[in-house]
């Protein structure tokens, strides 16, 4: 049993989002200001046990998909000062997942082609197991202690 403790970088208890969601308009405005959003953009994750408190839900724009020729305040992160971080921003950095990448084929096609090739090869392997190219002319080996009597080809006179 492995027990792992993830250290997601430096973490400050003062900066933890509050677990109570803002309900009234003023609370929402205050929360939006706290996170650097305009009140119209402020949305939270649903509060069903998998949410993040009052941390906002913003669109994912991964690091790789951001304009490399624009002038960023922090060119290493391709981020400007004061821009709100996505909750999983450390997953969408330049060296990790690129959520906004567009593929020539849909993701369903990716799955179909991969499992299609695997299934095709599996069928080949299975049929190869059925066909015997070397047909050894011998009956099954004698296995002892299986309730049957096994005889060799030496004869002895009947008693």
């Amino acid at each position, binding site marked *: 049993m492995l027990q792992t403790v993830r250290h997601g970088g430096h973490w400050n208890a003062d900066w933890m989002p509050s677990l109570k969601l803002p309900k009234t308009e003023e609370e929402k405005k205050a929360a939006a200001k706290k996170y650097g959003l305009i009140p119209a953009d402020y949305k939270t994750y649903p509060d069903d046990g998998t949410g993040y408190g009052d941390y906002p839900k913003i669109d994912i724009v991964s690091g790789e998909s951001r304009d490399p020729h624009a002038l960023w305040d922090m060119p290493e992160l391709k981020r400007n000062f004061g821009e709100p971080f996505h909750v999983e921003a450390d997953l969408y950095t330049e060296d990790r997942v690129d959520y906004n990448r567009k593929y020539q084929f849909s993701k369903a096609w990716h799955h179909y082609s991969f499992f299609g090739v695997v299934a095709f090869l599996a069928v080949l392997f299975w049929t190869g197991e059925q066909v015997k*190219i*070397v*047909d*050894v*002319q*011998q*009956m*099954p*080996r*004698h*296995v*002892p*202690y299986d309730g*049957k*009597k*096994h*005889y*060799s*080809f*030496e*004869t*002895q*006179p*009947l008693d």
Partner: protein
Amino acid sequence: MGQVHAVGLNYESPVKPKTNQDPTFPANYGFEERGETRRERVMIATKDEMIAAKVPYKYRDFCAHKYIQFKACARSVYPIVIKCEHERHEWEECMFEDQTISRKEFEREQRLLLRKQRKERIAALKEERQKAFEDTAEAEH
């Protein structure tokens, strides 16, 4: 890579014994009339001995006693296992005899099936001839 040694006879037999099942004819069929029986195979290594020696399941057959002796010798002279060539050869000989018995079983099965087929064919021909004879006899009358 993956070379295959094809072992077989040069002719195609009209009957093919099923090599994944036991023989269909009784083991002593044909021997009783001559006043003989086939000798039963005796297992020398007991079940407990095989378990204690941790013999792999693949080798728990009628040559397990030789396997155990070989492994005991090898263990005593490890890592110079070449010193146990005699024991290893004895084991291999036993396995060869085992395989020979399997092949003889196949040949016996094949010959008995051919014999059965021959008898059926002769009986069918006799029946046909008898029928033809009776038909012509009826026609004459």
